[in-house]
C-alpha cells in the first residue's frame, strides 16, 4: 500500500539497487574476463541462454541460485527512507524469489560480455524494469484489474521479454566481437 510519494522513493531505490548489483558485476567481471578467452565467454552465455530459456518455458527443470525468501503480502509504505531502503533491497535482485530466469541471463551477460560501465546500465535498467511493473500497476484503473489482465496474457508477455533479451544479448555479443 502506497502513501504520498512513497512509490517514487521505492522506484528510485530499485534503480539504485540494480545499479549496485551492476557495479558488483562490473568488478567481478573485470577479474573474470581476462581469465577467459572471448570464445569461451560467448559459448558460456549462449549455452546459458538456451538452458535458461528452456527452464522458463518449462522444458527443463533445475534449481537456480536465488534468495528463497518471501516478502510480506502487505507492506504499508510511508515517508522516504523505508520505501527507498526496501526499493534498494528489491532492486538488487537478492531480496526475494525470482519468478523468471531472465535476471540470471542478464547478470551472466553483465559479468562476461560488457565493456566496463555497461554493467551499470544493465543493472540500473533491471531496477527500472522492476519499478515499471509496480508503477504501471498503480496507474491502472483499477489497480487490481492489472493482475487479472496480466494473468490472462502472461505467456505472450514472458515470450516477448525473452525475445527482447535474446536479441539484446546477440547484439551485445556481436558488438564486442
Amino acid at each position, binding site marked *: 500500500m502506497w502513501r504520498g510519494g512513497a512509490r517514487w522513493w521505492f522506484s528510485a531505490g*530499485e534503480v539504485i539497487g*540494480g545499479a549496485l548489483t*551492476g557495479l558488483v558485476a562490473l568488478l567481478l567481471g573485470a577479474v573474470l574476463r581476462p581469465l577467459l578467452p572471448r570464445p569461451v565467454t560467448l559459448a558460456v552465455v549462449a549455452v546459458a541462454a538456451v538452458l535458461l530459456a528452456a527452464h522458463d518455458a518449462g522444458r527443463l527443470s533445475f534449481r537456480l541460485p536465488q534468495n528463497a525468501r518471501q*516478502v510480506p503480502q502487505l*507492506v504499508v*509504505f510511508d515517508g522516504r527512507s523505508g520505501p527507498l531502503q*526496501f526499493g534498494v533491497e528489491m532492486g538488487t*535482485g537478492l531480496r*526475494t*524469489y*525470482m*519468478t*523468471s530466469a*531472465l*535476471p540470471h*541471463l*542478464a547478470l551472466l*551477460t553483465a559479468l562476461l560480455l*560488457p*565493456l566496463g560501465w*555497461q554493467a551499470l*546500465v*544493465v*543493472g*540500473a*535498467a*533491471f*531496477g*527500472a*524494469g*522492476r*519499478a*515499471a*511493473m*509496480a508503477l*504501471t*500497476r498503480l*496507474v*491502472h*484503473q483499477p489497480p487490481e484489474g*492489472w493482475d487479472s*489482465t*496480466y494473468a490472462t*496474457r502472461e505467456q*505472450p*508477455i*514472458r515470450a*516477448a*521479454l*525473452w*525475445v*527482447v*533479451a535474446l*536479441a*539484446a*544479448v546477440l*547484439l*551485445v555479443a*556481436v*558488438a564486442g566481437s
Partner: protein
Amino acid sequence: MTSPVPLRAAVSHPAAVPVALLAVVAAVATSVVVRGAAVTDVHVTAAWLALGAAAGYAVSGSP
C-alpha cells in the same frame, strides 16, 4: 478533444513495457541488420537497457 483514458489504459497495460522494449530492439536490429549501419555505442547501450529492463519486468512480485 481526445479523452486521456485510452492513453492511460494503453500505458498501464501489462504488455505496454514489453511492447516498448520490442520496439527498441526492433529499431536497433533494423538499423544494424537491414540498413547495414555500423554498431555504435548508442545501439549497444540500447541493447543493455532493453536486456536489463526485460529482466526486471519479468520478475513479478511488486508490493
